[in-house]
């Protein structure tokens, strides 16, 4: 039994067998074999080569109609590599003389070739071919999968070094019990999607992929952030009990809070919205007491399909969400693609940007692909007569951009009018406050926008210049940094002064640790993952706004992050103790 610690990002406990989704260069454990098993291990290796070649033939046949001859020729080259006599001799030699396990010998010998190829630019271009060959062998030897989760036939626990959002959205709840991933932090997209799908997940689990093999029994505790490999019976029983407790207390909390208003002790009504990625999540949102959808992240529509959705596909999704939520509002954010969320075919080949988070993403990409943008706007406007829909533009940083986006909506509306297609005539249009420039200029934007939504994930990352996904610096990603707090405060004040509602839809709005502070800063609308809502409501109902204001005022005085956090925690503790 071995326990790995990571960051729990989606609550729940799951027990199951490991299904590994490989990425290029996943580490392989340096396993050795007893000397007398060398012959058997060589046979295992030779069988794997034969199976890998057979796999290539299958791919060739399957892909022949889709790919040109030029591409198919690559397969021939890979067969030649698998069959390479020097390679085979080298690997077999390591199995026989050093008693390395076949997969470790494959890894070591191919890594040697990778190093040789990297020595010269004219050969370095073939490194990915070596990895391809290596992956094929490892797939056979270690039972690693191609990463195509659609091939899942029974429930498993997904283990990966890293997962692309486009892979995660393809997960189906019935067959994916839990996710454990080496990379990533609390705000990674895998975390968001796992939450949306209600799949327990632990990220940032260092060293996991080198140590588990496909089919190993593991326990994932998405609350505690633990991965237990090969658990003993006592441990297993303990986790089963934890899981039962979680399910029960969640249900109790939902029942208990459902009919109660989200109101502070001194009677101030707070609005609770849900963030969703898929239209049917509206059900979960309603069950958990959401008063609307504060953020519908439409980019997952693109990621899920791996291509640009048609206008009808957009329309169906928006109409479904709007009808389910009616008469409550649904805020639809236009596609926030680019940077870490590329939809491959949907956005065309990803432009190689040296600095994607500062590049052509989000609204900028909308302007780059006007056809794609208009298709989405048309669908939103058409769906607007089926419920209460609002439009939200992401990553606005200048008034010009907001005007330009408004113009597109206006233009599309005229087009629909001309075609005699009904749409809402004065749909509310809001903007995300997630670029520091927008927060600083919030009073100017308040004259143009119908509402603000503070996106804390990007606001923090851009204000502090910290990549939340980079484990080396992720500890610097501090929501309570005084600069961030001041920008939030400024935005809320600007909105209040102009009568523009301000909500917050980032990770921060669902974290109980910041609730008192945010209430004290004047935030009255929270939009979070649906699962968090009952807990958030219970916490709101235990807070006096007056206390919150006092604490926020104190925190605002503080220029030092540690002291600010200190005030926040001790003052909140005092409240809990006296309350």
């Amino acid at each position, binding site marked *: 039994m071995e326990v790995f610690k990571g960051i729990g990002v989606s609550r729940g406990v799951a027990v199951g067998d490991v299904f590994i989704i490989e990425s290029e260069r996943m580490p392989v454990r340096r396993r050795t074999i007893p000397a007398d098993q060398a012959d058997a291990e060589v046979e295992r290796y030779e069988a794997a080569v034969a199976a890998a070649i057979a796999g290539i033939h299958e791919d060739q046949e399957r892909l022949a109609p889709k790919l040109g001859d030029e591409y198919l020729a690559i397969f021939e080259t890979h067969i030649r590599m698998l069959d390479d006599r020097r*390679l085979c001799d080298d690997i077999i030699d390591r199995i026989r003389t050093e008693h390395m396990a076949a997969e470790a010998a494959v890894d070591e010998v191919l890594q040697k070739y990778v190093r040789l190829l990297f020595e010269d630019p*004219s*050969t370095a271009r073939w490194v990915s071919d070596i990895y391809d060959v290596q992956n094929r062998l490892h797939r056979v030897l270690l039972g690693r999968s191609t990463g195509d989760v659609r091939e899942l036939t029974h429930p498993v626990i997904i283990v990966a070094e890293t997962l692309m959002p486009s892979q995660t959205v393809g997960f189906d709840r019935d067959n994916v019990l839990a996710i454990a991933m080496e990379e990533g932090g609390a705000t990674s997209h895998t975390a968001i999607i796992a939450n949306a799908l209600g799949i327990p997940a632990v990220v940032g689990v260092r060293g996991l992929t080198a140590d588990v093999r496909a089919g190993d029994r593991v326990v994932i505790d998405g609350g505690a952030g633990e991965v237990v490999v090969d658990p003993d019976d006592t441990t297993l029983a303990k986790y089963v009990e934890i899981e039962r407790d979680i399910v029960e207390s969640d249900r109790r909390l939902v029942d208990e809070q459902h009919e109660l208003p989200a109101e502070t002790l001194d009677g101030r009504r707070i609005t609770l919205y849900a963030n969703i990625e898929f239209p049917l999540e509206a059900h979960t949102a309603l069950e958990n007491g959401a008063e609307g959808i504060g953020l519908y992240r439409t980019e997952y529509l693109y990621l899920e399909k791996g291509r640009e959705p048609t206008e009808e596909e957009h329309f169906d999704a928006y109409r479904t969400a709007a009808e389910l939520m009616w008469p409550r509002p649904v805020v639809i954010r236009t596609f926030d693609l680019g940077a870490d969320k590329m939809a491959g075919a949907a956005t065309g080949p990803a432009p190689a940007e040296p600095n994607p988070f500062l590049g052509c993403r989000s609204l900028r990409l909308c302007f780059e692909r006007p056809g794609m943008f208009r298709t989405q706007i048309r669908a939103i406007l058409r769906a607007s007569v089926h419920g209460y829909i609002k439009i939200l533009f992401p990553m606005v940083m200048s008034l010009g951009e907001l005007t330009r986006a408004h113009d597109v909506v206006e233009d599309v509306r005229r087009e629909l009018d001309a075609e005699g297609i009904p749409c809402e005539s004065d749909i509310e249009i809001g903007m995300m406050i997630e670029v520091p420039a927008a927060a600083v200029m919030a009073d100017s934007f308040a004259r143009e926008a119908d509402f603000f939504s503070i996106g804390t994930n990007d606001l923090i990352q851009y204000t502090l210049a910290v990549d939340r996904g980079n484990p080396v610096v992720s500890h610097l990603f501090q929501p309570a940094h005084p600069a961030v707090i001041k920008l939030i405060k400024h935005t809320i004040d600007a909105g209040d002064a102009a009568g523009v509602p301000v909500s917050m839809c980032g990770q921060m709005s669902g974290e109980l640790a910041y609730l008192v502070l945010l209430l004290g800063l004047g935030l009255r609308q929270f939009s979070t993952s649906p699962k968090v809502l009952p807990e958030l409501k219970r916490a709101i109902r235990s807070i006096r706004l007056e206390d919150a204001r006092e604490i926020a005022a104190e925190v605002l005085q503080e220029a030092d992050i540690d002291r600010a956090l200190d005030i926040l925690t001790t003052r909140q503790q005092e409240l809990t103790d006296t309350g």
Partner: protein
Amino acid sequence: MTTHSAEIPVNIEENLHLRPMQLLVEAAVRFQCDLILSRGQKRADAKSILDVMMLAAEQGPLQLQANGADAPQAIEAMTALLHKELNRE
């Protein structure tokens, strides 16, 4: 047993691509003789694609050496193939 060898000029401007190398190796494995392909400082077993790939880092003409019973036939066939595949343009 005699060693047969041949020099095949390869356009220096041009990189070696995978496809001709693969065809070369496929042809080479059909012969029994040892076939050594060299270019600049590097020597490669002509029956190993991974070995031959490393020659792309060097420049200049390719040298082919064959050692074994069917060496003359091998040299003839391989030279023809290389001329065809590498000097196509």
